[in-house]
């Protein structure tokens, strides 16, 4: 069964450093998403992406964040200058156009020191 994959599974970085989280969505999917889950809290929407553009973003997704689909298979989330409060599990998800089910990847656990 096709699945969403994410790399790395864990990332430790120093405050102020840039990080790039990578996702490979399911191959025929056209809509892509990033969510995050701070430890002990609920999963929160960050951004949705379709046709090489951001469709919607939350208030969390400020200028420090950016997304990109650099090629036909990868979908990346970049945090330009990480803060301590960016420590969280980041989930990528994808869905097929017109379908309501979003399939989630296993997540990348980001720790900012």
């Amino acid at each position, binding site marked *: 069964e096709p699945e969403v994959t994410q790399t790395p599974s864990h990332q430790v970085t120093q405050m102020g450093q840039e990080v790039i989280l990578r996702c490979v969505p399911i191959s025929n999917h056209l*809509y892509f*998403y990033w*969510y995050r889950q701070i430890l002990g*809290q*609920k*999963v*929160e*929407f960050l951004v*949705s992406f*379709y046709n090489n553009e951001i*469709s*919607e973003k*939350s208030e969390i997704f400020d200028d420090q964040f950016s997304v990109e689909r650099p090629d036909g298979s990868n979908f990346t989330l970049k945090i330009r200058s990480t803060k301590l409060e960016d420590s969280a599990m980041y*989930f990528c*998800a994808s*869905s097929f*156009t*017109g379908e*309501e*089910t*979003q*399939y*989630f*990847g*296993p*997540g990348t656990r980001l720790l900012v020191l």
Partner: protein
Amino acid sequence: AQSVTQLDSQVPVFEEAPVELRCNYSSSVSVYLFWYVQYPNQGLQLLLKYLSGSTLVKGINGFEAEFNKSQTSFHLRKPSVHISDTAEYFCAVSRGGDDKIIFGKGTRLHILP
């Protein structure tokens, strides 16, 4: 705007006993409803979803949920739980299509031997 309330943050239940995890939602428009499960140190897995039609939805691992429009609820049930059901369960809503998913805070299910 949509919101999801999971009143129980933790639910302890004995193995082989039945369980119900409660979920209420609020929305001014029709929504699609989901239950996701997160096993320890893993990502989010779709348990079941309600899009339309029969209000009783069956999912994986013996779980089912009932959509009640008048009570704006979507409670999750299982007639007999196993140790392997130990996980966090998230109720979620979406307006459908490519719309973001809004998650509840989650209910941690503890299975007692």
